[in-house]
């Protein structure tokens, strides 16, 4: 299972990769580097020109009454809304890949899937904890192998049918079915009977039982303390089998769910409109009447539209970020959140001279992380270790490496690293990466190491880091799929991930032992204590230069209320509402 560079999470170019028992985790290059790649180099080249043209377009659009820039000539008109309706306007660059929860595995798809569909549990707003959605409560066996969910009885699909346990079972079996080719398959493979089902030896997954319509029981082959988090992925949403069977592959365009919104219009490459589900099981939710997302608007166009008041929430293009932060009334409209992610400089422990821990520590002392944060205009916090703050199990007492070039020089001398040492730093070809790369290059030059920067496209970069003895230095990042330390430590530092996600080819038998011991534990205190011990060992061994935890920024109009950035998922829109007299548009 792997994901290419789309954006599963807001603004992040990343992908999910096979992660054994630990489930997936998202490898990403950096915040604010959305779905761009080599292509973007060209785009950059005439960005200034495009911006100028767009200004003219936006200005003339505004002159024609403000609505002029929505909808192309000849396109079907957007559904009309009565005056005063609560309509949230958004704009994105790329079309939403899919609305089918079995297929979507990127930010854009998940944003809308979680509006249309319901899962048993979901992450709390702004948090990393699970809260009930369709489930009213759930029980976990002490060995973390049996999970029983009790469902609410008032949830209905928008076609009128009640949501039952069978609908969840149906969707998970659909995801597991090889014919569906779902990227979510690996998350449910450890269910009892999943292998037989996938091989075609069983008609259903034996490990999923529905003793009555309002109860569902999952049995696993082995303990998995983070299993419930997997059920919070849209892959495990309730879908009506009769609708899926009717439309087949086309289900994505005719989705029916039980969520707070339902699909009203989706014109590929142009517009996606969701309207309120009046029968949603929570009264008074959603507060919006509709969400209109305009597709095909570049970052710059989105920004111009935002400034013109034509859209309600926007990303902040990097060229505008400093301007926004220096303009008090714009700055007041920004929202930010520290991602459950860590940016690092990986050093290949199998390659000389990085097999010497003194060299790796020297690099940690030599690189000025505060400078990098300043370069990012504050879109990051200094990382002391592997786990990002906000992740359960984060150790606030962990001390990493301070900036100390004198000590770095001393360590390099001790290790006998001479002047001819000139490692190559691999990185994504991207403006922000290059800036950070140059900063690292400057810092290391001060301690006598001349680094050569090697910007490469995303796919070849990911290919290269899997090869042993190829990449000595690499600038990468990792983002959590699940809020658990296992999702970082086991996935990135265990021996069995060599050639997989352990891109520094790090191996410490003691760390591996701790990881194996911690994995099945359900007692959080004991679990986190073991992971913290493992993290301390990793920090001491320093296979990474622990750089920073990225901070994501968004901006919303003053009339937008209840817009909350979430660390684990795209923002949920059902609690969003608009101040009635705030906007000058409708």
């Amino acid at each position, binding site marked *: 299972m792997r994901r290419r560079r789309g954006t599963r999470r807001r603004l992040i170019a990343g992908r999910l990769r096979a992660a054994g028992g630990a489930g997936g985790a998202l490898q990403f290059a950096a915040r604010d580097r959305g779905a761009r790649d080599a292509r973007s180099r060209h785009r950059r*080249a005439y960005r200034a020109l495009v911006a100028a043209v767009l200004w003219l377009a936006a200005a003339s659009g505004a002159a024609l009454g403000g609505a002029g820039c929505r909808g192309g000539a000849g396109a079907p008109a957007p559904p009309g809304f009565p005056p005063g309706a609560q309509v949230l306007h958004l704009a994105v660059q790329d079309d939403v890949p899919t609305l089918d929860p079995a297929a979507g595995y990127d930010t854009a798809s998940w944003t809308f899937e979680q509006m249309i569909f319901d899962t048993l549990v979901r992450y709390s707003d702004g948090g990393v904890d699970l809260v009930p959605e369709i489930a009213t409560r759930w029980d976990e066996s002490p060995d973390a192998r049996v999970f029983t969910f009790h469902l609410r009885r008032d949830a209905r699909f928008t076609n009128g049918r009640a949501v039952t346990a069978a609908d969840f079972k149906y969707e998970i079996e659909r995801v597991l079915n090889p014919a569906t080719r779902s990227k979510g398959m690996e998350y449910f493979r450890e269910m009892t009977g999943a292998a037989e089902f996938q091989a075609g030896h069983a008609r259903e997954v034996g490990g999923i039982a529905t003793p009555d319509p309002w109860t569902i029981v999952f049995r696993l082959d082995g303990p998995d303390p983070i299993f419930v988090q997997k059920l919070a992925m849209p892959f495990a949403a309730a879908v009506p089998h009769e609708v899926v069977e009717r439309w087949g592959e086309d289900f994505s365009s005719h989705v029916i769910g039980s969520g707070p919104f339902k699909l009203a219009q989706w014109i590929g490459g142009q517009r996606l409109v969701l309207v309120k589900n009046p029968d949603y099981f929570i009264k008074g939710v959603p507060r919006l009447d509709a969400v209109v997302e305009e597709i095909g608007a570049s970052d710059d166009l989105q920004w111009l539209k935002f400034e013109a008041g034509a859209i309600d929430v926007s990303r902040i293009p990097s060229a505008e*970020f*400093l301007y926004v932060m*220096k303009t008090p009334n714009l700055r007041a409209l920004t929202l930010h959140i520290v991602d459950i992610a860590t940016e690092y400089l990986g050093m290949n422990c199998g390659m000389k001279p990085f097999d010497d821990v003194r060299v790796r520590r020297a690099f940690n002392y030599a690189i000025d992380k505060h400078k990098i944060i*300043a370069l990012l205009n*504050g879109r990051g916090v200094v990382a002391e270790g592997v786990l990002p703050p906000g992740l359960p199990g984060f150790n606030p007492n962990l001390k990493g490496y301070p900036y100390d070039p004198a000590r770095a020089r001393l360590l390099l001398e001790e290790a006998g690293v001479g002047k001819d040492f000139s490692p190559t730093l691999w990185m994504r070809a991207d*403006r922000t990466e290059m800036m950070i790369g*140059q900063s690292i290059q*400057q810092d290391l030059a001060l301690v006598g190491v001349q680094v050569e920067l090697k*910007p490469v496209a995303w796919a070849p970069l990911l290919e290269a880091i899997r090869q042993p003895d190829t990449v000595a230095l690499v600038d990468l990042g990792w983002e959590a799929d699940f809020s658990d330390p296992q999702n970082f430590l086991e996935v990135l530092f265990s021996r069995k991930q060599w050639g997989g996600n352990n891109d520094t080819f790090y191996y410490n038998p003691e760390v591996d032992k701790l990881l194996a011991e911690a994995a099945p534990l359900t007692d959080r205190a004991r679990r986190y204590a073991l992971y913290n011990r493992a993290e301390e060992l990793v920090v001491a061994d320093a296979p990474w230069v622990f750089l920073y935890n990225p901070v994501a920024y968004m901006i919303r109009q003053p009339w937008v209320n209840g817009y909350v950035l979430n660390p684990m998922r795209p923002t949920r829109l059902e609690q969003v509402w608009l101040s009635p007299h705030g906007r000058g548009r409708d």
Partner: protein
Amino acid sequence: MTRRLNAMELVGAVMVVSLVLTALFAPRLAPHDPTRAVAPTYGDPGRPSAAFPLGTDELGRDVLSRIIWGARVSLIVGLAAMVITMTIGVAIGLVAGFFGGAADFALMRFTDVMLTLPALLLAMAFVAVLHPSLLNVLLVIGLVSWTQIARVVRAETLSMAERDFVTAARALGGSPARLIAFHVLPNVMPIIVVMAVLGTSGTLLLDAGLSFLSLGVPPPTPSWGRMIEEALIYFRTAPWLIAFPGLAIFYAVLAFNLLGYGYLRARGGRAGR
């Protein structure tokens, strides 16, 4: 050959000389190391001030020093690429024009094909495949810019090859190589000089373009095109960061164009006659 330079030539020559001197004496002229941070203006470029007349960039480096060192890279690339361009262009033009027939047809159709490909696009493709480095960049620029020169030199050679003095030399038993080297080339030289000077501004621009697209000389070596590219993020808050390297490119291109056109004008509008 002694004649007074006209105003255009004079200004152009002074500007070119100033560029060359800047490039030669960059280590002496630049107040700071262009690759090191000299002010803590990380992420928020510093305004021009007494200490840093052109400000400091997002990595705390002195913009003036970077522009001065950038002149070195630009001139090396511009001039070296021009030498390659001239060598290829003149050789193809002379051979095609002098021998005519099948050689002319083959070489000129090849030139036409090359002309249809936009130089920047071709250079981008080459550099992307090769590894961006000083040598590769100037080689690539040289390899994509020779077409116009080949055509002009061929046209001049064609007319020269039929002149009486060439026929006379041939009658005296001169070998083709000798005829080209001692009779045709000296007479085509003026236009070659003009094309070389004007072409240098073209190669400078191409270099800036490649750098702008992150395909130029890799960092930390300062280059004007990359400086503009890196400054784009700060367009709203630090426009001078784009303006100064932009002016440097403008100055260099103007210098070579003034010199070239001034020389052209001095020779009566049409070079080579």
